């Protein structure tokens, strides 16, 4: 068994596990950190962005670089369509992948990079909410990047001069591997490949394994995967949460006692408690709204957004601000809000109880009906512009502030200190997200809400699950000497650390395969006790392999009677001579040899070499003599 790591971002993991001649990809996360190095794509032309000065590195005169780089408040940005950092494609040939297992919708964004135009022929499995919400995320991303990005080609020259550029651009990891987003057609094709599974559904992987998605408690439809064969068990824990929020709680029992536990996608903000952050957010929002300012929350179109809407609306009502409108702006806002309310089977018990009444599991449907919550495809929707009132709270993407409606709103509100922007998504460092909008007068708050396991929760989980071996991305391992103390996973089980591009052998060794023995064959065997509690019988059978499942059945045709086949211990030569005499083979002469002795039967032209663990009969006589010898030798040796 081997584990390959293809992603450098531990919260957007991508692993490949080779096991039982299968290549199994675990998640295909897309690292979007790279987009922070690009200039924002405003949905409407921005004169400020357009008039930023060009940047040329000192002592470089390269006409090809012309216009590729811009400077804003001392930071250099690439003026081009933003690019993303997909999983490494050099280590594994994607056409050889047998199956891709997706744990949750934040970890599937690179799917088209893996499955399209790579010769991929395998299966992709995800839960239904993962597929649907993942579709919302991907479609939103694709629409925003493509709608703004029709102008201008991709800037390429800067990648060759990256060593000459100022940080943080100079520190960008492997910019040459960055890729532009896939086309909507490729996206649709990739999503069409996904096969939907339910929690605890056993998915047969080519007869070799069972894969089961079990609830991970992180978001709607989020799953940990358990791979099981008759003798081995691998648990892949990615994006799990032990907190109580809206999704179904984590199913820990299913992960217990694995031979290998792969741990990925822990919290990105271990220093921030999500509950406190939610409280802070409500307070900041209230203060801003009271002062007549509006609040912008750059968010993804699903996930924590539902909790934000639920908490913030209740909090505002308590604060006497129930009249403040809440807006969700996204090309998929309507679908996301509607869809979340039909997922009764995927939500927490409390929310499920509401469905039995029957009421919607999430309160945002009621907020929409009451007119407090409105959603729009884009900022320029006529209906939306018509009833847009301030102060208000706007939830829109993208959290990187490089594309989407949020770019326009930050541009619009940046100069007014009454407004506030509150960052809740943990994927991007907020200061970097805001860098191209500096100087900024509006207030910026950082309230990251990441409900994934933090390090102490993860350590506790590993202790409870007791895997025989643990595999981690390097970010989660203890720092080497001189690395300083950072939070890490410390478990007293053998731990394998993997980093991008690396492959590690694991200690899981297969010894046996599971088969079924047909009843008649079992009935014919007569096992003898060879040791206390251990009985054995020789068995010859036909092996039938169907759908990679093994069956042992009786050998067709006239079945050969089971012969005693296993003889052991040393042969007592004197006993053999006596036994031969009983068989009527007399005149045996025994001569001592180098490492045993030789029994000579001159009348029958036969020699028997007797060694400690072997007897060799050179018989030139008649067949009945040989048979007599067989019987005699067998009688002198213990056998089954």
């Amino acid at each position, binding site marked *: 068994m081997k584990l390959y790591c293809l992603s450098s971002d531990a919260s957007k993991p991508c692993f490949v596990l080779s096991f039982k001649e299968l290549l199994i990809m675990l998640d295909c996360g897309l690292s979007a950190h790279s987009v922070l190095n690009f200039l924002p794509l405003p949905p409407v032309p921005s004169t400020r962005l357009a008039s930023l000065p060009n940047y040329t590195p000192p002592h470089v005169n390269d006409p090809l670089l012309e216009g590729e780089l811009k400077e804003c408040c001392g930071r250099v940005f690439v003026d081009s369509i933003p690019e993303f950092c997909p999983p490494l494609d050099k280590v594994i040939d994607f056409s050889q992948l047998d199956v891709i297992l997706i744990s949750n919708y934040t970890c599937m964004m690179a799917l088209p990079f893996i499955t399209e135009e790579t010769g991929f022929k395998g299966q992709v499995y995800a839960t239904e909410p993962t597929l649907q919400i993942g579709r919302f995320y991907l479609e939103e991303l694709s629409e925003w990047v493509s709608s703004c990005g029709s102008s201008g080609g991709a800037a390429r020259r800067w990648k060759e001069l990256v060593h000459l550029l100022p940080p943080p651009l100079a520190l960008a990891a492997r910019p040459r591997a960055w890729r532009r987003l896939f086309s909507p057609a490729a996206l649709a094709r990739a999503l069409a490949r996904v096969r939907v599974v339910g929690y*605890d559904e056993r998915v047969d992987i080519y007869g070799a394994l069972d894969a089961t998605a079990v609830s991970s408690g992180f978001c709607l439809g989020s799953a940990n995967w358990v791979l099981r064969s*008759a003798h081995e068990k691998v648990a892949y824990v990615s994006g799990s949460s032990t907190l109580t929020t809206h999704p179904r709680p984590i199913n820990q029992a299913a992960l217990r006692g694995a031979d290998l536990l792969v741990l990925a996608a822990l919290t990105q903000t271990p220093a921030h408690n999500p509950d406190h952050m939610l409280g802070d957010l409500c307070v900041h929002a209230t203060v801003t709204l009271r002062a007549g300012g509006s609040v912008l929350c750059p968010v993804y179109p699903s996930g924590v957004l539902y909790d934000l809407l639920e908490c913030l609306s209740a909090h505002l009502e308590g604060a006497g601000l129930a009249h403040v409108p809440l807006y969700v702006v996204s090309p998929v806002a309507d679908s996301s809000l509607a869809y979340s*309310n*039909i997922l009764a089977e995927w939500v927490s018990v409390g929310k499920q109880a509401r469905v039995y009444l*029957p009421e919607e*599991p999430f309160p945002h449907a009621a907020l929409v009906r009451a007119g407090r919550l409105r959603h729009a495809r884009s900022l320029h929707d006529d209906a939306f512009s018509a009833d847009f009132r301030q102060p208000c709270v706007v939830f829109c993407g993208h959290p990187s502030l490089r594309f989407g409606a949020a770019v326009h709103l930050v541009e619009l509100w940046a100069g007014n200190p009454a407004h506030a922007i509150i960052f809740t998504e943990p994927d991007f460092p907020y200061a970097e997200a805001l860098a191209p909008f500096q100087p900024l007068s509006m207030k910026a708050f950082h309230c990251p809400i990441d409900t994934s396991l933090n390090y102490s929760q993860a350590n506790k989980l590993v202790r409870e699950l007791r895997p025989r071996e643990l595999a981690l991305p390097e970010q989660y391992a203890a720092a080497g000497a001189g690395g300083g103390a950072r939070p890490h996973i410390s478990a007293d089980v053998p731990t394998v650390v993997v980093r991008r591009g690396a492959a590690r052998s694991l200690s899981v060794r297969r010894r046996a395969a599971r088969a079924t023995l047909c009843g008649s064959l*079992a009935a014919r065997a007569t096992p003898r006790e060879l040791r206390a509690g251990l009985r054995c019988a020789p068995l010859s059978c036909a092996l039938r392999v169907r759908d990679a499942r093994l069956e042992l059945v009786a050998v067709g045709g006239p079945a050969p009677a089971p012969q005693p086949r296993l003889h052991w211990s040393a042969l007592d030569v004197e006993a053999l001579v006596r036994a031969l005499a009983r068989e009527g083979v007399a005149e045996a002469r025994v001569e001592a040899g180098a490492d045993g002795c030789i029994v000579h039967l001159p009348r029958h032209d036969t020699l028997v070499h007797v060694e400690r663990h072997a007897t060799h009969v050179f018989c030139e006589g008649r067949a009945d003599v040989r048979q007599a010898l067989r019987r005699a030798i067998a009688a002198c040796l213990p056998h*089954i």
Partner: protein
Amino acid sequence: MPEIKITPLGAGQDVGRSCILLSMGGKNIMLDCGMHMGYNDERRFPDFSYIVPEGPITSQIDCVIISHFHLDHCGALPYMSEMVGYTGPIYMTHPTKAIAPILLEDMRKVAVERKGESNFFTSQMIKDCIKKVTAVTLHQSVMVDNELEIKAYYAGHVLGAAMFWIRVGSQSVVYTGDYNMTPDRHLGAAWIDKCRPDLLISESTYATTIRDSKRCRERDFLKKVHECVEKGGKVLIPVFALGRAQELCILLETYWERMNLKYPVYFALGLTEKANNYYKMFITWTNQKIRKTFVQRNMFDFKHIKPFDKSYIDNPGAMVVFATPGMLHAGLSLNIFKKWAPYEQNMLIMPGFCVQGTVGHKILNGAKKVEFENRQVVEVKMAVEYMSFSAHADAKGIMQLIQYCEPKNVLLVHGEAQKMEFLKDKIEKEFKISCFMPANGETAIINTPTKIPIDVSLRLLKAEAVRYNAQPPDPKRRRVVHGVLCVKDNRLSFLDIDEICDEIGINRHVIRFTSTVRFDDPGSAAKTAEKLKTLLAEKLQGWSITISDGNISVESVLIKVEGDDDNTKSIYVSWTNQDEDLGSYILGLLQSMVQ
């Protein structure tokens, strides 16, 4: 031979009161726990004393599985769990768990409050019963205990209806409940994978009918409604809150939309509205089309169908009203009926079955006058139509399901004996599998092949695979494995001889035989070997014969030719004790060839 035993307590050669006992591998499972709508005495409920004449029932039943919310499948559940005292696990899908208590309560009210029955379960009992239910999702594999596993498949029939696959050890059974193999207005078609169960227990309501397409019945229904309202008549459709009501609402809604009709359509407030909400919440259980379009337009948000108010009864002009209950035995539907019945232009459409003793039953049987308790007599002049919209698989659908899941045996329930007989013949002829149809209280016994799980050593398998793959591909070739069967702690394994020696700590003693045959054959030894190989290949077809460096090996028997050119050759044949049969055969073959 391990066996599977099936005893229907209800639904054996009968429709109604589905309750089937299944025993296999030491587990007892109850499939559905329904009541009979046609009886008012103790025959209404299954005869639980069959399971155990006296004493607690829980120890005799490992779990109860409910396929869907119709009362003939779940109606006796509160009776069993709260009055008979069953405390074990109960499984059903989420929508069934949500909707069943409403129907149970509805039925309880009719039985207790209208008919004044005592010794019936109470509202609280229904609530307590439902609390004990474990809800399952489609395809989720649920381990009831260490050996018993169940899994739900989509069945179509009504919202939340499921078929269940049940496995104990190597034995498995599929129970269909009621299912529908053709998608309808709001539900999809039943689906199951090729799970090859030992037994398929299928409903057979429409065992002999190949039904005309549903479209025809729908068209008929719409035509009648349309004609009636066009003439200014009022149409009353008594329905139960859930199931058919939604299907008919969708049907009328789309027709009204398409034909741009303006006649008012109402449904009785309360239950039906609430019921529509259930359909909205569980939209993932409806068909593809509704699921795809629900964001833009939720199929269960009706534009043309408005809530009904009692004051509308006397409104002039045409209208269509859906009202509960469905059998006209009480409530709003009866009130409306009393007002509208005496007028010829009006119409009553009964979309479902009516139990004896109800007004609905009388009218369907052609009663022209109905007398009520207060001596009020109502003349029935309105047109009366019966239209069946129940969603069951027909004969074609049942055969299709058998083809899907490839069972080794089929057992029919939930149908009439005569029709079952016909279908049974058909199944046995077409699929060459046995088919059973036990009556209530009768036990069917099905034998299944023994299959014992065994761990096979990889070393053994790899060695075999190397041998097998070295030969030209031939799917018919036998793949024979020799090893030692080992029983330890009640677990079986199949090991290589060396492994077993290591395991026990013994030293193997190998016995080998070698004999020589002299052969006069001029030419090189290699040439002689080639000659021998050709000869052996002729005599030993199907065995693997290879030659390398002038040594021939037939499986594990070695043959070596020695001798100078133009001289007598010595052919050595050597084999180990376990290849005695082959070795002596080859030796004999060579000897006869030389002579």
